[in-house]
C-alpha cells in the first residue's frame, strides 16, 4: 500500500535562508501526524510547500503515489487534499451553511452543471450533517462573521472536511481557542477520524492538544527533522527538550 502523503528530500530557500532543509516523511492511511517545533522552525513553510502555496526549491511531494509538486492549490484540493489556515479563514458574509456548501461545491459536477443545477449543488443535506457534527446547528443561518472565534475555528475545520478529503492538513487548529471549545474541537476531530478513517497532518504549538490527538509526532527545528515517533517518546527525547529550551 502506498502512503497517502510522501515528502521526499524537500527543501525551501528564501534567498540565503534555508527555511526547510531536506525533509522527508510519509503519512499512512489513518494516521494523525503532528508536526511541532519552536517558532521559525519551518513548519508553516513546509505546509505551504506541500499544499502548493509555495514552490519547493528541491524535492518532491506525492499524494497517493501521484506526483503533486507544484500543483495549484485548487487542483490539489480536488485530488482530495484539504486544509485549514493558521489565521481565521472563513467567508464572513456568507452564512455558516453557505460556507460549507462552498467548501464542497467545486467537487460536484462541472462549471456548467454548477450554474444550471441546484442552488445548493446537492450538498444541502451533507452541509446540515456537517453542521450538526460540529455542533453548529443553532448557527446554521448566521453570517459566519458573526460567530465567536472558537465557533469560527470549528466551522473552519468543518469546511476542510466537507469534500470528504483523503488528507486534511490542519494549521494550528487550537491557536487562540478557549479551553471548552478546544476540548470540543479535539473531541470532534477524533470522532471524525474514528468515523471516516480520515488522515490528518496537524501543525500545532500547543503540546497538550498534539499529544492527545496525534498518533505520531514529528519535531522540526531550524528546518530539519530532529525527532519522530509516538507522542510519549518524543516528549522524553532530549533533543526535543534541547530545541525548545536551548539557545
Amino acid at each position, binding site marked *: 500500500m502506498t502512503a497517502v502523503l510522501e515528502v521526499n528530500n524537500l527543501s525551501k530557500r528564501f534567498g540565503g535562508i534555508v527555511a526547510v532543509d531536506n525533509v522527508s516523511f510519509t503519512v499512512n492511511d489513518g494516521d494523525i501526524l503532528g508536526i511541532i517545533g519552536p517558532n521559525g522552525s519551518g513548519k508553516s513553510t513546509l505546509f505551504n510547500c506541500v*499544499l502548493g*502555496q509555495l514552490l519547493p526549491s528541491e524535492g518532491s511531494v506525492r499524494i497517493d503515489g501521484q506526483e503533486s509538486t507544484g500543483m*495549484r*492549490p*485548487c487542483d490539489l*484540493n*480536488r485530488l482530495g487534499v*484539504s*486544509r485549514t*489556515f493558521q489565521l481565521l*479563514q*472563513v*467567508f*464572513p*458574509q*456568507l452564512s455558516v451553511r*453557505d460556507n460549507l*456548501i*462552498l*467548501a464542497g*461545491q*467545486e*467537487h*460536484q459536477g462541472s*462549471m456548467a452543471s*454548477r*450554474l*444550471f*443545477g441546484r*442552488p445548493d*449543488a446537492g450538498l444541502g443535506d451533507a452541509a446540515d450533517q456537517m453542521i450538526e457534527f460540529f455542533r453548529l446547528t443553532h448557527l446554521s443561518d448566521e453570517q459566519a462573521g458573526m460567530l465567536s472565534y472558537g465557533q469560527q475555528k470549528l466551522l473552519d475545520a468543518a*469546511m476542510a472536511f466537507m*469534500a470528504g478529503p483523503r488528507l486534511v492538513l490542519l494549521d494550528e487548529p487550537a491557536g487562540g481557542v478557549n479551553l471548552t471549545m478546544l476540548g470540543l474541537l479535539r473531541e470532534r476531530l477524533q470522532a471524525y477520524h474514528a468515523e471516516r478513517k480520515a488522515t490528518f497532518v496537524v501543525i500545532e504549538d500547543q503540546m497538550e492538544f498534539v499529544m492527545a490527538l496525534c498518533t505520531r509526532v514529528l519535531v522540526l527545528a531550524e528546518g530539519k527533522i530532529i525527532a519522530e515517533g509516538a507522542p510519549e517518546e518524543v516528549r522524553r527525547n532530549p533533543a526535543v527538550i534541547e530545541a525548545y529550551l536551548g539557545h
Partner: protein
Amino acid sequence: MKRFGPLSVAVAAAAAIGLPFLLKPFGVYLISMWAVLTIAAIGLNLTLGYAGQVSMAQGAFVGIGAYTVALLTAAGWPFFPAFILGGALCFVIGWLLGYPALRVQHHYLAFVTLAFNTLVFLVLRNEEWLTRGSYGIAGTDRPSLFGLSTDNARVFYFLCLAILILLSAATWWMLRSPWGRAFVALRENPIRALSLGLDTRRYTLMAFALGSTLGGLAGGLYAPLVQFIEPGSFSLNLSFNLLLMVIVGGSGRFFGPFVGALIAVLLPEWMRVAEGYYLIIYAMLVMVLMVFCPSGVIGLFEKAMKPKKPPAAPAAAAIKAEATPQ
C-alpha cells in the same frame, strides 16, 4: 435584499408598469434610460460588488455594445442578432480584460481598466472608417418585435423593461447558484477559496466576462434609445458614473444598481431648479453618503430596518423566518 420583503418589490413593479402611462414623452425617455443604465450597473455590480474585481471600464463595454448594434443595424442586420452579438463580443473582450486581474489587484486593476476605457474611446474616435469618429452615428432604428414596431417611446420602454427583467432574473438565478457563492468567496478571501478547490482564475475571468456582457447588452439598447451615439458618450465619465451608481445604490446588494441608477437618472431632473449646480450637489451627496454609509442607499435602508433592540429570541427567529422569502 432579504429584509425588503416582497411588498417593496411589488410596489416597484407596479410603478415600473404604471408610470409610462402617466408620464410625458420625456419622462418615458428617462425611465427607459433608467432601465438601460440599470442593466449596465447590474453588470458592474456583479464584477465589482459580488466578485470584488475593480473595473473602471464598464462605460467602454456599453460603448462597444452600442456601436455594434448601431453599425450592424445600419448595415441591414435585424436588431436582435446585432444585440446578442454585441453582448457576445463584450463577453470575449471582458474575458480578455480579466487576465490582468489574475496578475494585479485593487488599485493596479483600477488603472488597467481605466487605461482600457480610454483606449476604447480613442479607437472609437480615431477609426473614422468604421465608427465615423466624433461625428457619431445618428438614427439607429428601433426594433420591431413580432411585427410590432417599438418606435413608440412607451413600447420601446416596455422592451427595455422586459429585457431588464429577463437579465436581472438570470443574474438572480446565477447569484443563488454555486457560482454566486464562488464570486463572493473570490471577493472575501481568494486564497481560502483556492484551497477549497475553487478555480479562482476561471471564476475571475467569468466575473469580468459576465459583467461586461451586461454592459454590452445595455449599450445595445442605448443606441436605439438615444438614437445618437458618439465616442464622448462612452468616455471615462460614463464608467465613473456607473461606478457611482453601483456604490451609491449599494455594492454587492442585488437591488443596489436599481436604486443607484434611479438616483443618477432622476437627480439631475429633480434639481432642474439648481440648474448647473446639480452636479455639485450630486457630488456632495455622494461624498456625504460615503462618509456616513459606505454600503450605499440599500445599506442605509438595512440599517434603518434593523431593530435597535432585538426582541426575545424565538420571536425574532419567527419574524425573520417570515420576512425571508426563499
